[in-house]
């Protein structure tokens, strides 16, 4: 798999660390309650199709990316800087 890092350009999958669903960006408040935190930490839509997830260009520029990709075809549609998505 190859991902186009917004900083570095297209790179081999081996340069990236994968974390998981991009819902991790939406951290609940401290007092949101167990169920909200359970959803945030554990429960996943886990789609067979397009998904957004978080990757870290660890052996590259060190940017956290939100990658738009397909879990069935492995097509990678887009990668953007996580800090831009968040802002």
């Amino acid at each position, binding site marked *: *798999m*190859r991902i186009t890092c917004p900083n570095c350009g297209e790179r*081999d999958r081996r340069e990236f660390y994968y*974390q998981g669903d991009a819902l991790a960006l939406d951290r609940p408040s401290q007092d949101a309650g167990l169920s909200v935190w359970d959803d945030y930490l554990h429960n996943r839509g886990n789609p067979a199709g397009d998904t957004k997830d978080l990757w870290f260009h*660890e052996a590259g520029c060190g940017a956290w990316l939100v990658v738009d990709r397909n879990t069935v*075809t*492995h097509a990678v549609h887009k990668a953007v800087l996580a800090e831009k998505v*968040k*802002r």
Partner: protein
Amino acid sequence: MRLEQPEQTVTFTFDGRKLKGVPGEPVAAALMANGIKLVARSFKYHRPRGVMSAGSEEQNALVTVGRGAQTEPNLRATTLEVSEGLEVFSQNAWPSLRYDMLAINDLFSRFLAAGFYYKTFMWPRSFWEKVYEPVIRRAAGLGALSGETNPDDYEKAFAFCDVLVIGAGPAGLMAALTAGRAGADVILADEDTAMGGRLLREREEIDGKPATAWVAAAIQELANLKNVRMMTRTTVTGAYDQGTYAALERIAGDRAAGKPLECFWRIVAKRAILTAGALERPIAFPNNDRPGIMMASAVRAYVNRWGVAPGKSVAVFGNNDDAHRTAQDLQAAGIKVAALIDSRDDTDITSDFPIYTGAQVVATKGRHALESVTIAYNGGRRVIRTDCLAMSGGWNPTVHLTCHMNGRPTWNTDIASFVPSAENVPGMVTAGACNGTFSTADCLAEGAAVAADVAKDLGFKSRVKVPQAEDRTYAISPLWAVPGKGRQWIDFQNDVHVKDIKLAAQENFRSVEHMKRYTTQGMAPDQGKSSNVVALAVLADATGRGIPETGTTTFRPPYVPVSIAAMGAGSQGKGFAPERFTTSHKASVGRDAPMIEAGLWYRPSYFPQKDEATWREACDREVGYVRNAVGVCDVSTLGKIDIQGPDAATLLDFVYTNTFSTLKVGKVRYGLMLREDGHVLDDGTTARLGEQHFVMTTTTAAAGLVMRHLEFVLQALRPDLDANVISVTEQWAQFAVAGPKARALLNTVLDQELTDEAWPFMACGEANVGGVPGRLFRISFSGEHAYEVAVPSRYGESLFRMLVAQAEVMGGGPYGMEALNVLRIEKGFITHAEIHGRTTAFDIGMGRMVSQKKDCIGHAAAARPGLIGEGRQQLVGLRAKGPDHPLTAGAHLFEKDADATRVNSQGYTTSVCYSPTLDTQLALAFLENGRARHGEVIKLRDHLRDVTETVVVCDPVFFDPTGGRARG
């Protein structure tokens, strides 16, 4: 027999027999030239087998090459190149290829039908491992590994191109020429020793010249194009996401010259053109596996390309026009054609050799070499004496790579075979025979057209110029199996025959996947390249379905077997992971310290002295340095992260459970970090060097993890925070100087006087060493009066030597990991032995360090009911009965009189040591409700090491509980 005398020959051996061969020709050709027909024994029934093909799809002729550690089993004699001194051995036969004891399996074959082993060998139960299985295992397997360490070099490499052309036959050469001429970066890869594909094997003309001349000209032109890279002996083995292809290159030349044997390529191509050709498939007639029965196209290859006659009197059996070529080529080469047997009634050929149309081979004779075939013809039978039968059941396009990304091929009735479906592998197109396009003229045209389209897509302008070539039609009438007496082999490599597949259908293994798994069809080294379609057809027939409904099994990478050494090149020995060395490494090694792995780092275990017999003696002495004088330890491996910015303190408050915004400049604070799920991530100290400047230390193990975590927080969770983090682990060589004489020692190396007033416990700041600006931290991981002094790494070795020399003057010296561990256990300080990923702040008694005034990572999840409370196993100390009662790490804990069973287990030890300071054995442990049980006597049981001890539960801080020594 050779058709012409070769210019040059070399000597190689087969099973010890010296033979002449032409350098570079396949061993199969050389064996043939030497009249050797029997070259292998089959997998299951140990039937005598000969060479079947002329390529990497070979099913029968697997051999072993070399001796000792260089032994390489399961090489195909059809692709193995002859060289001087090459030693080739047959395999899977004992005592010899000719007289193989296990051929007895063949006699009992009626009892060894597909899947028979699922139905027996069940009684008595204990016999499976002891009796049945060992016998089966010894009989199974083809070649043997030497069991010795691989002595050869292999390498890996990356390559990039606009267009990867896979296969250099007519379509591939045209594609490469077209794309190359247009200016695209082209890689042309072919698994053969020379470019040209089937044009090297056929008698054909292109542009009025022999095809081989056209090939030579094409290669010359490609070689002159700077943007084209030609890779021979290179098999593209797999297609992966986003245009990544794996390829295996067998490197030509002398093994002894230090050349790598193979190179495993990762090729990234914007586009790929698959021009992999097609493979001829056998016909399943009775006893179609005798040595001397070959693929018709292979016979042409040996005659036309290698100048070797596979037989003296050759018969040809086919169901398609292409088989006719074989007969014609044999005749042209002056080899007797015993018969052309065409299963079709209406075929149109005239010649002066015997032709039987509407005929089928129904029997064969000859144990170690073919002697005759019997054909059914005109309602009767006829025996034809022949020593070689060339068979052709038609052609299977080599669609494999188009299926590597889960694509499925489509059945094409016209050619009775599967062809690639469109859009199988993004960026890859197909042309030529692999696409079901068989005539040379069509292949050339399709290769050029496809490449022109690809070049245009990539922004290049191209002109299509296609040479004139033969445009024969390919007519075929399916013939899969011929009934008769004797087994009709389909998968020669796994000894699967027609009856096996019928039995599978009978037992409801009707799905093609079930049939494959039940009969092992297509699971041998060739992965059913030649046989799968025949098997499908037989299954379709047996289940009353058509072939398209029956479907295919999945082709998966690699296309040809790839050695583990090639894909794992560079990792043997120490190459598996980088090695990290501290600046004091050489000095420590110079003191004979055993260096042990700590993550990727090496750290000294202990520093032995001459009179010491065990590591314990050294360790006790080093502990004594720190407790009584002064010890020096390199702590540079701990992660150091520089944190700067207006929001640096806010960041720290968010990632640590405790508060850092209140920390004063020039001070250090211990911090605890949680994962978002509420368990401990790491701990360490963070120093405030300036209002907006901190330096964080992490454990050695978690340095990378914490760095990634901080970046995650800053970029993904809190981009509103204006702070930057960068690792400075490598910038600073940092040494712990610990013990009552620590200050005195430092005063011998520091440029300014170190005083308790200026440097109280947990102070930090700049300090110069010999004019070099350094940093000093008054922190302690031993519980003693201690400092960590840091200088830029270039001075690390020098400072280490200096500190150690001064320490020795003061009755101290260097200490290693063993002593460091004892010192911290005595003080109840935790490491990742305790914070192993399942512990919470509550468990380690730091619940109160989780500030309730602010949010932090892990705060909410740590409050889950399951993560706190009496039922949790909590950190405690355990004290043994005395110094002669060693405790073991990993032992479980039980109430004093309880049985050592799972339900009774209340905890376990994590770290143990002999404490020379307290002269007893200690352990840190987790114990259910442990904090409330100090003073209780419990049982420690280690089944593995047969240790049972009674121990007293106590506070984990065994030594100096008030911490006066570190402050003093």
